[in-house]
């Protein structure tokens, strides 16, 4: 198998054994980008020369037997709402046109320190607002398994990049499901850590109480390796958690674990292929000795409503900084007021403007308690639901979404139907809990199993996901589409 399609831990071993060089691995990734990016549109910026320098430096470190990082020589693609020093940062928006961040995000810096080779920036829904990756100023991203379908969003570019072998590892960000949904629909592993476990410093803020950076890779061990490099307290992020122990004192076993099964959320019925694939995954969990128990989160059916109020309210406030004064695009205006309005009206795309308006409305005098207040109270009830559920189960599994990837354009005219795509991933976001999407084998389009765990039990959700992965075998790379030869 071509190196770019192999899992991170195997690549790390081969690099260490001298069977593969970082430059060879990078070249294979770049060949895949050259072959398929025009069609898939997963990349906004490819940094050939910077990546080559970093890969050569990694090979030199190995040749000279210098100390190596855990990801030394592994190419990584960064979602383009996370700062990489000296590379353009666009958030897939016209409003950041020409902006080049003067520093690395903490997550970027930690990957560099671990030896990773930064290959470029991935496409996304503008400011990470979207579930299909169709809302990008650079055009939609396409699903490598069926280019007529969406990859899921908003970290669509990151997940497509890993699925198509542009890099074995990518960073995404997840506010309501933005890593897990595209990971599910692209057949890769996407992990949203506990809120506060990975620094948000240098991630362009969307919904600050929900945003979380996380890794995407072909296997659970790949995301676990990246998470180990990313995690840790950062004084530059006021919501960053203090460092805890790396592993629970005793290694937990999935055998004997009580695992809650969440069949759905709200009134959306599961599509047949999703229901069937989920049953396969549940049987696999039973095979490895887990005890399945049905659980219900009584307030999960209200989660989408609460989420779109809270996330949009926070977005309307966070995006106030884009006014044409300090960075990016500047519109025209004889007065400062005209300058603001022209910059923002031309700079933001339709979905971002819709959310700013929704959020501004939800925070307006006279409406704030009815909308924002009610949504935050509901959020507490959802946290309460989880607290009660985790008194009797160790983890909760569900499908990631009610359907597999839909066709491009299918939900673009109906924002609400697009928002409801995230019904199963939003509850964990509102509660700040760790959750991962792990591929389940299917006959057609990829589908992921969603594993959620209690606060700070990141290692546990990864362990459950790894058990499913081992029992079911790896999901196949996109078949017969050039990358898989």
């Amino acid at each position, binding site marked *: 198998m071509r190196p770019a399609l192999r899992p991170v831990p195997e690549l790390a071993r081969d690099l260490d054994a001298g069977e593969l060089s970082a430059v060879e691995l990078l070249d294979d990734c770049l060949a895949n980008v050259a072959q398929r990016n025009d069609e898939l549109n997963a990349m906004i910026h490819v940094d050939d020369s910077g990546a080559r320098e970093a890969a050569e430096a990694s090979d030199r470190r190995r040749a000279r037997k210098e100390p190596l990082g855990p990801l030394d020589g592994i190419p990584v693609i960064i979602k383009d709402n996370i700062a990489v020093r000296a590379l353009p940062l666009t958030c897939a928006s016209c409003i950041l046109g*020409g*902006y*080049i961040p*003067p*520093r690395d995000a903490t997550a970027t810096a930690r990957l560099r320190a671990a030896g990773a080779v930064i290959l470029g920036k991935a496409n996304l829904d503008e400011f990470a607002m979207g579930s299909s990756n169709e809302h990008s100023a650079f055009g939609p991203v396409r699903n490598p398994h069926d280019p007529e379908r969406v990859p899921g969003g908003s970290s669509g570019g990151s997940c497509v990049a890993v699925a198509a072998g542009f890099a074995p590892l990518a960073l995404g960000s997840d506010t309501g499901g933005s890593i897990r949904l595209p990971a599910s629909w692209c057949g890769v592993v996407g992990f949203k850590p506990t809120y*506060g476990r990975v620094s948000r410093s240098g991630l362009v803020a969307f919904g600050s109480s929900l945003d979380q950076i996380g890794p995407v890779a072909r296997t659970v061990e790949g995301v676990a390796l990246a998470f180990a490099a990313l995690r840790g307290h950062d*004084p530059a992020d*006021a*919501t*960053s*958690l*203090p460092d*805890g122990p790396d592993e629970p004192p005793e290694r937990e076993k999935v055998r004997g674990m009580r695992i809650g099964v969440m069949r759905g959320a709200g009134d959306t019925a599961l599509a047949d292929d999703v229901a069937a694939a989920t049953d396969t995954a549940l049987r696999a969990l039973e095979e490895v000795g887990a005890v399945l128990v049905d659980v219900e989160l009584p*307030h999960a*059916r*209200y989660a*989408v*409503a*609460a989420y779109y*109020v809270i996330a949009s309210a926070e977005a309307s406030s966070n995006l106030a900084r884009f*006014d*044409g*004064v*300090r*960075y*990016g*695009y*500047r519109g025209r205006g*004889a*007065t*400062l*007021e*005209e*300058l603001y*309005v022209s910059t*923002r*009206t031309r700079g933001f795309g339709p979905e971002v*403007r*819709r959310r*700013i*308006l*929704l959020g*501004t*409305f939800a925070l307006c005098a006279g409406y704030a308690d009815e*909308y924002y207040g*009610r*949504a935050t*109270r*509901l959020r*507490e*009830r959802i*946290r*309460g639901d989880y607290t009660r559920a985790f008194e009797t189960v160790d983890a909760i599994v569900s499908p990631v979404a009610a359907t597999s990837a839909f066709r491009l354009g299918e939900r673009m005219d109906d*924002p*609400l139907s697009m*928002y409801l795509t995230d019904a199963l991933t939003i509850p964990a976001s509102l509660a*700040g809990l760790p959750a991962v999407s792990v591929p389940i084998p299917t006959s057609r389009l990829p589908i992921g199993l969603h594993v959620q765990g*209690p*606060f*700070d039990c990141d290692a546990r959700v990864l362990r459950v996901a790894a058990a499913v992965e081992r029992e079911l075998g790896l999901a196949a790379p996109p078949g017969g589409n050039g990358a898989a030869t």
Partner: protein
Amino acid sequence: MVGPEDVRRIARLAKLALEPSEAAELSKQLAGILAYVELLKEAEQEEDVPAPLAPLPSAAPPLRPDEPGEVLPRRDVLSQAPGADDETFRVPSVLEESP
């Protein structure tokens, strides 16, 4: 509930300009979303719901010491501005705004 006039008022607060046709379309879309958000009212009216619990256990994020740290060099920051001189961001005259 949210008419085109409301949308225009919100847009003014958010410093966005709207085409007349846009205000009508957006008011339809926002009304649809807000009608869905009415579900939250229903959630609060459920009586058998136990009172909200304390939030999930989480360690309180520590405050960092109140000490000056490293900041970005001014030149690097100003280099990204669409209008700047050696020391400051440049914008149109603010005073011209007053009626």
